[in-house]
Structures are given as C-alpha cells and as structure tokens.
C-alpha cells in the first residue's frame, strides 16, 4: 500500500505540471470557442465536468479542434500529440470531477471480455446506428454514426461513458464495465474479421451486392451474349 501511496503523490505532482501545460494549450487552441475558463459560449458547450475521458476522445481522435461548423465533427488526424492531449485532459479534469481516461480499465479487455456476449450487446445497443459490423450509418440531417473500424479500445470505452455528439451516454448502470469490455472485444474482432466469403463488398448489406450483380454479373453475361450472337466472318 505504501508504494501505491508514493505512486499517488508522484502522479499528483505530474498532474499539476501537466494541468498548467494543458491550460496553456487550452488558451491558445480551444478558448476562442469554449471560453477562457472553459465555461462555454454561444457555439461551444461548457467543458466543466466533462472529464478527462471526453477530452481524450474528442482531441485524441482529431475531432477537436473542429475543422468547420458542419453538422458533425469528423474523425481526422489529431492536431496535438499524445502528451499535449494528456495535458489538456488533465487541465479539463482539474476544473471539476468527470469520467477519467479508462486506459487501465480497458487494458484487460482481451482477458475479461467475451466476444460472443459483446456481439449480442453490440447488436442490441449499438448496431442500430453503427451497423451490424460497425461500419457506421446515417443519422438525421447529415449527422452520422461513424465507422468503428479505426477505434482503439480506450476510445470505444470513452465514447460509451461520455456520449460524444449524437451518441447517448451508456453509463455503468446501463452497460456494466464488464459488458463494455465484451463490446470492445467484439469490435476488435469485427475489425480483424477475415473476409470469409470472398470480397466483403463493404459489409453494408445487399445494396452493393445488387450493384455488383447488375454491373459485373449481368454485364459480363450480356457481353458474352453479344459475342455469341455475332456472326462468324
């Protein structure tokens, strides 16, 4: 326990320095919309109480800072490096308590998660927006549920506990932490799912199949029919 205590104080020290560093980054890159003290403004919400998890997700996936004022912040290459993201997260977490970055929680997803159970939970709670294999889907007015094919375990967990953009919050009473790990394990399996039946055609259902049968399938056969009906010269 003693070593845990030393660890804790060391962490606290590191946190103070990174809080200051995070505040500097915040003032330069975020405050024009979120306000000098992260209190929010006309176009951006208050960040007091959103927690480190929210910052890690939004900035770590490149969604923040916002590229433009379109319907939804798109995933893009992060503007800040991991240390800067951590500093920003520490600063926002210092404003008020909120969900923490779940790095340690998700570390054991391989061991503690159950892929098949995760699939059931995913189809019940997530597939309605993110599609049956996590390819994403449309929401109203140009908004969308993004593809999960590039998401890391921590990002998936953060999305569930913070509910970014149109996504609802799936608190621990709705989906227990253990179940969250199963969902993560299933999504990782879906990311690595081999194409068992040949080319996947995007894993978005019958639309691409219909497109292929009319173009390649019937196209090929009509070509052959034209060839067969050509008179020998």
């Amino acid at each position, binding site marked *: 326990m003693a070593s845990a205590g030393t660890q804790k104080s060391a962490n606290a020290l590191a946190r103070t320095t990174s809080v200051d560093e995070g505040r500097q980054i915040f003032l330069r890159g975020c405050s024009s919309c979120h306000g000098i003290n992260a209190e929010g403004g006309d176009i951006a919400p208050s960040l007091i109480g959103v927690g480190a998890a929210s910052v890690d997700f939004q900035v770590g996936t490149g969604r923040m800072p916002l590229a433009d004022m379109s*319907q939804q912040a798109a995933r893009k290459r992060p503007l800040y490096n991991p240390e800067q993201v951590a500093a920003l997260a520490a600063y926002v977490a210092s404003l008020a308590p909120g969900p923490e970055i779940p790095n340690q929680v998700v570390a054991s997803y391989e061991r503690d998660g159950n*892929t*098949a159970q995760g*699939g*059931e939970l995913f*189809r*019940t709670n997530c*597939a*309605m*927006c*993110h*599609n*049956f*294999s996590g*390819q*994403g*889907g*449309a*929401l*109203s*007015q*140009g908004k*969308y*549920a993004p593809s999960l094919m590039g998401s890391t375990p921590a990002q998936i967990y953060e999305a569930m506990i913070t509910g970014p953009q149109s996504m609802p919050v799936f608190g621990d009473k709705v989906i227990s932490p253990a179940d969250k790990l199963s969902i993560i394990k*299933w999504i990782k*399996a*879906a990311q690595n*799912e081999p*194409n*068992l*039946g*040949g*080319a*996947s*055609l995007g*894993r*978005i*259902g*019958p*639309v691409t*199949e*219909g*497109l*292929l*049968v*009319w173009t*390649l*399938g*019937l196209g*090929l*056969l*009509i070509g*052959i*029919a*034209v060839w*067969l*009906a050509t*008179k020998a010269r």
Partner: protein
Amino acid sequence: MSSAEKRAGTVANYVDERTGAAKWLKKNLTKVFPDHWSFMLGEVALYSFIILLLTGVFLTFWFDPSQREVLYQGAYQPLSGIKMSAAYASTLNISFDVRGGLLMRQIHHWAALLFMAAIVAHLMRVFFTGAFRKPREFNWIIGIGLLTLGIVEGFLGYSLPDDLLSGTGIRIAEAIIQAIPVVGSYLSFFAFGGPFPGESFIPRIFTVHVLLLPGIFLALITAHLMLVWYQKHTQYPGPGRTEKNVVGYPLMPVYMAKAGGFFFIVFGVTAFLAAVASINPIWLYGPYTPTQISAGSQPDWYMGWLDGLVRMAPNLESHIFNHTISWNILIPGLIVPGILFTGMALYPFIESWLTNDKREHHLLDRPRNAPNRTALGAMSLAFILVTLLNGGNDLIATHFALSINQITWMSRIGVLVLPPIAFVVTKRLCLSLQRHDRDLVLHGRETGRLQLLPHGEFVEVHEPISEAKAWVLTQHDQPPALEFVTEDEAGVKAPRGALNRLRARMSAATVEQIPRVEGNDLKEIEHH
C-alpha cells in the same frame, strides 16, 4: 454401316416404334430461331433458375427450417454459445461446417439476384421492342407473373436463415400485412400463427419457398416456353424477314450448342461471383431478435424500390371508429405496387385499345419507332430508379456526405417530377432519331470527307446507305390516329363520346411520328 451404327439404329428404332418420337423430333429439332444477343436475356433467367434448383436442393440437405431455440456450438467463434433459431444455426453450419456449403449458398444467392436482374432485363427488351403484341399477350402476363413470384420467392428465400437482416425484412412484411384495413391484424396472426415472430413462420415459408413456388415456377416457365415454341420467336426487322417467316438457325445443331454452352457460361459466371464476392454474410448479421436492428437494413435489390417507396412515404394516418389506417404503409407498400403491376400486366391490351391494332406482330419494333411506348418505358424506369435509390438513402447519405432528410425530400419530389420529364425527353429523342433515320435514307451517311468545290465552297461527301439498311429504316408501320364520329348527320350524339374523345386524343399522341421515307420521297430526291 459399322456395327456400332447398326446397334444405335436398332435402339432408336425400338424407341421410335413405341413412342413415335422420330417424326416429332425431326420436325422440332429443325425449328428455326432468330439470332440476337437480346434474345438471350430470357435464357440467362432460365439458366439461373436451373442453377437455383440444383444449389437449392443441396442446401435443403442441411438446412433446418425451424425456429426452435438452440445454443450455437459451431465453428464460427464470434457467435459461440449464443442462443439462436435452428434455422440460423443450420445456415451457419452450412456456411462453415459443410464442405462446399458456403460456396453453394453464395452460388444460390448470386443466382437469385441474377435471375431477377435477367428477368427485368428480358422484360425491358420485350417491352421496348413491342414483343408483347398480339399474339403474345398471354405470354406477357405469364412473364409478369414470373416477375412477381420471383420477387416473393427471393424475399422468402433470404428470409429463411432467420438472421438479423432478414428478420427485419419479415418485420416490415408483417407491418405491410397489418396495414391492410380491417383484416390486417387477423391476416398477420394467420400468417405468423400468432403474434410476431412466433415459431411457425420459418417452417411455413420454407414449404412455400422449396415446394409451392418452384412448382408454380416450373409450370409457368414451361407454359412460357411452349408459347414461344408454338407462336415462334419474334425477330428484328431486316431484309427477307416478314411477319410470315422466321430467319435464323435451326435448333439442332446450332442452338443446341449455343444454348447448351451458354448455360455453362451462366453457371460459370455465377460460380465466379460466388467464389470471389461475399453475399448475404449472415454470420455478420447475427441471429434475429425483435429487440435488435442494424443501421442500413436493406432488402435485396429487386425489393429495393419497394423499400424506397416506404422510406419516402409521408407520415399519414387516419383514425376512423377507433381504427387506425396507416396510409404511410398502405400506399407505398400495397396501393402503388398494385397499380404498377396491374398496369404492367394490362399494358398490351391498353396499347392495342389505343391503336386499335388487332393484327399479329412477329417483327419487332425498333424502340424509336414507337416513341410513346419507349417514353412510357423510360418514365417507368425513372420512377423505379428514384425509388430504388431512395431505398439506399442512408448509405447514399453516409458515403456521399449528404443529409438523409434532403435525399428523402429530393426523392419525394423526384418521384413525381422526373418520370414526366423522362417521358418528354425520351419521346423527343425518339422523334429526333426518326428524323435522323429519314435523313440517312434520303441523303446517305456522312463520310467525313470534305470536298472543296471550284467556287470555294466546302461540302461533306455523303454516301448512300446499303439497301439492307435502308429497308430496316423504312419498313415500319405508321398507322393513322383513331378518329371517332361524335355526331351523325342528323346531329345525334354517338354513345361513349367522352371515352372516345379521350381514346382519340391518346391515340393521336401514340401515333405521333416523323413520316418515314416512301417511294415518292425517293423519286423527289432523284429529281435534284
């Protein structure tokens, strides 16, 4: 004669003495069919059907059409230990544990998509060339029957595995049944043997899918082909081709070889698709549970237009005597398809009524020479394309970064506005092509060679087209519009005046044509 030939002759004679087959074969094996690639679209449909029968039989050996709940313990790990229906588990089993099972499933499904695509392409060929005209109206109706049953058969087929996607489709089918006023909920209870989803539906549609509908298919296809045989195949116009003959090749040996070979080509293309491209990966969808749904749930393409119609329907509902009428489902799900298919089936009779054409037709129309019909076809295609695209509105939204609401609104407007535009544009295009034909016959084809005349003028040299081509461009009928006497000399009005006026006006629109080149025109040109 060698001894082998003698033996074969003895066997043939033995059979002939007992069946009289020789005379029948001699007559029918030499039957002549015209040659054109577009006549092979129906063949693609026929061969896909044979492939469907063969692969379908294979699948029934392992498929368990039951909604009994089982615990999956098969090879596909991400579903291990999940509760599912026996139907879904056995489909997983076919896919992963039966040797060659996945390939067979994929051939079966690709062949089904190809079957429907070939039927639609064949239908378009028949429509645009006027092949449905007398005496082939019944065969047209049989064809529409096959198309309709094909849609139902395909839907039932992909519903059998009881996966999350197909279960969603059945749920929508249930909603459409329930939308039928007054009797809807009773019909739904009847179909599902109680409340949705129940345990009866999969076994029931299995019987319909593998027994009832294939039986009807076989009967209808036989009748379809027998009529083609008896009425003889239509042919495109050309020198030496008349309403009384068929110019082409004999069944034996030319078409035996061609059609036989083409069957294997169709089988090959289907097997190729099945080998390289995944279709209906039910293991990714998961087992069906009414509490689950996936984004981007679409039906197979031949139902896509129906889905698109339902997706674009405005949210209309009436409440009469404590009874809900869901117009939002009733109109797109039943009324519009009903009108479409009835109109399609009756079209040969409608056209014959408008043109008062009761003659037999064995020579096909070039689509441009029937501008109204071609325009009507283009209009229908525009309608179906808009609805089909709207069936994928969510995928279009995500893949092209658009708003699903705007796509839906564009579809609502487009489905009303684009078909009439397609009609007008196509009709003008047809008339313009007719003008071009007339020009070709009268002035010849442009050679691209420029000539400088002595006084400095440049002219392009035209070359007369071949007689054969000129024949094709001038052989078509141009009947006059119908006229009806509205009053006799005594001023007595004829009966059915309003109907006749409508018929005369539609007839005038139908026969609108650029005058084809006649003998007099040619004489005039020789004068120049």
